[in-house]
């Protein structure tokens, strides 16, 4: 069963026949990446937009690179071809840069700015690049870069685990995802414990405001 939302068109310049939106998530195990992507996917299904996702579980509970791919619209493969991501949501600056293999010059990037230093760096391997340099590189390659201090914002709200929801709100603020913010709110209210709902709504709204203003 495949349903396509009328008017959903890809921001990237793929073939005429395709009518899809590709969202690539990248970060570090333990950051709530799959949870975040699932919320958009469930909201999409609720709104009548077809969604497929690909996730890799296993060998990285916490600390390893993790990616998750979400495709809305009329596609079969749950994995995004190289250079075909319309939106990249990076939960960690180096992981955002690593995910640029999926980007083209029209891609929009949302990235957390706070680094998580990998063990390989602490053990004296390659140095962790300056965040400003990573952001400058991202800006030189893609259509738009939104640097979001999601972890700091979530801490400010009093729920550090909601950094993923801040990024979700920021993704919605770009207007690229063809869903209403309230559909995401509805999905959130069915996914998070009621005592954390208020803080999650705030995280979503603050992320949303941040990119909408830009």
């Amino acid at each position, binding site marked *: *069963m495949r349903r396509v939302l009328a008017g959903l068109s890809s921001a*990237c*310049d*793929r*073939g005429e*026949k*395709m009518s899809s939106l590709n969202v690539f998530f990248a970060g*570090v*195990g333990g950051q709530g990446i799959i949870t975040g992507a*699932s919320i958009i*996917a469930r909201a999409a*299904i609720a709104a009548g937009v077809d*969604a*497929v*996702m*690909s*996730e*890799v*579980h*296993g*060998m990285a*509970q*916490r*600390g*390893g690179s993790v990616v998750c791919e979400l495709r809305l619209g009329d*596609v*079969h*493969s*749950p*994995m995004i*071809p*190289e*250079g*075909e991501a319309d939106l990249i949501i990076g939960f960690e600056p*180096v*992981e955002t*840069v*690593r995910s*640029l293999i999926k*980007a*083209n*010059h*029209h891609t929009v990037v949302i990235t957390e700015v706070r680094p*998580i*230093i*990998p*063990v*390989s*760096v*602490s*053990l004296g*391997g*390659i*140095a962790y*690049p300056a965040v400003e340099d*990573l952001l400058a*590189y991202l800006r030189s390659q*893609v259509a738009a870069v939104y640097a979001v201090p999601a*972890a700091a914002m979530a801490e400010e709200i009093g729920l*550090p685990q909601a950094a993923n929801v801040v990024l979700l709100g920021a993704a919605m603020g770009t207007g690229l995802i063809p869903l209403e913010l309230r559909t995401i709110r509805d999905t959130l209210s069915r996914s998070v414990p009621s005592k954390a709902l208020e803080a999650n709504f705030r995280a979503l709204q603050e992320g949303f405001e941040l990119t909408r203003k830009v």
Partner: protein
Amino acid sequence: MKYQALVDGKTGDHELLLGNEAAVRGALEAGIGIAASYPGTPSSEIGDVFSIVAKASGVYFEYSANEKIALEVVAAAAASGVRSFTFMKHVGLNVASDSFMTTAYIGTRAGLVVLSADDPSTHSSQNEQDNRYYARLANVPMLEPSSPQETKDYMVEAYNISEKLELPVLFRTTTRVAHMRGDVVFGDRRPVVRRGVFEKDPARLVPVPANSSKMHVKLLGKLAEARYLSETSSLNRVVDVGVGGRAGVVTVGSTFNYVIDALEELGLSARVFKIGFSYPLPLDRIREFAAGVDELLVVEELEPLMENDIKADFLSHGTRTPVCGKEELLVPRVHELNVDVVAKALASHFGVPLHVPASGKVQPWSSPLPSRPPVLCPGCPHRGSYLAVRRAIRELGIPEPVFASDIGCYTLGMAAPFSAADYLLSMGSSVGTAGGFDVATDQRIFSFIGDSTFFHAGLSALASAIHNKHRFVLTVLDNRTTAMTGHQPNPSMLTDAVGDPAPAISIEAVAKAMGVPFVKVINPYRVAEATEAYKEATQVDGVAVIVSKQVCSLLLDRAKRAKGIWQTFQVDRDVCTGCLTCVHDVACPAIFVSEGKAEINQELCDACGVCSQVCPVHAIGVKK
């Protein structure tokens, strides 16, 4: 209850499901009564879901100690007239294969489905073996879905086929189907039959030589029937891409998704024969299909199995349509495929330009990025165990020790600074290979096995090592769970698969009862004591067993948070001399270097305290 929809979802309801979750709904729609498994990625979530929904759905579910036992439980259940289900990762079927092969001879009364989740590209496995060979080896029918919806639908069909043929059905998924999430529309749930009656029939059910030779003949007869079912199955169907396609593509599983997307991306028209009932192949229909196209392209992941069957069939039938497979299309025989690989092969074959975003590809970051391979979690108790072993070896001056490793999170001890994994074959291999290194070398042997793995395949290996007087230090890394696959229970725990109380088997008591001369339980968070224990163990002339007992830090962290305990360690920068012993000896993801001194990430620290014990100037303490 999470997954309530899987239990009481009605016909026509739909839900966003992982392929593995869809497999559970399919099994429930088929009315299974009994399921058994040993966890293994990429199949693990099937068991996780059964753990939650089994009771509510009236299904019996257990985690057996290994895949062979799980298969035996469900084979006997199906022989007693109860539809039954076992699921495992691809290498799990190697463990179960001894009984699996003979299940085909004996057959089944009620439906029996064996799901194998393969892992092309070895995302979380030691090899990427193609388990489609097992259908051919055992002579059993096989189904392969492409999506969560098909996973659900094919499960129901698998039970029908199994009962029609009185044969187990191999249900093969891969990581990209098992871990694909998509919308799934539900069908009817058939009532659960939880208990049956076993009727004796030794001529059919006991494969002594006089019986088994007849069983083989009968099995080949059933395989011919299976071929007929495949020829007439709606799971094998033609999908037209574009109009007037002159080329035919035969494809299966997740590769079907890549073929369709690649054809559309390249703007090519083709007729696609989608195989869902993949063994035996519907060769008559493929031949008819081939007669209507100019050429036949076979696109499949890993081994050229369909290709070889089709080429052999065309040769024997004089079918002239050219067949292009792995070599002709340059589709690799290793690793998983994706739209990029398939599009490249098709573009080159049809002489059309490969789609490149008109905006152009981005330039990669100019220098190498710091890598972020999977590592032992902050607070992981294995870190303390490896640190203690390394310290004992250093203090005793043991030259060239050999580390025989096993399958679990602790294999990550392979990385620096521990470098504590030198050799690894399979579940339980740490014990057998330790004995091999002992008899073949004069080196000191240290082997490591997890608690779940110990019960999976370590017990008989330990008996063998003791009896054969092998000498090595075996550490059972007892983190009170099956951690790597997502925290499933094992026989050393007090609860079973559905959360009921269960007898816990003490690993140290088992080792003592078997006659191990040295058994010691340590807490890996106490580095000095643990180090002393290892020094003592290396003096033992025989097998020394150290049970390193400390609950997985992820579970400990969860329990602490539930109680409102939030403790972390921090570095006193006035005391820290910047020697970085903590960084180099402990290699914890929570510790990083800032302006020449150690610093602890307060979000990641799990307060195991191991770093504070290695600091020579006592600069690390509990954050006040």
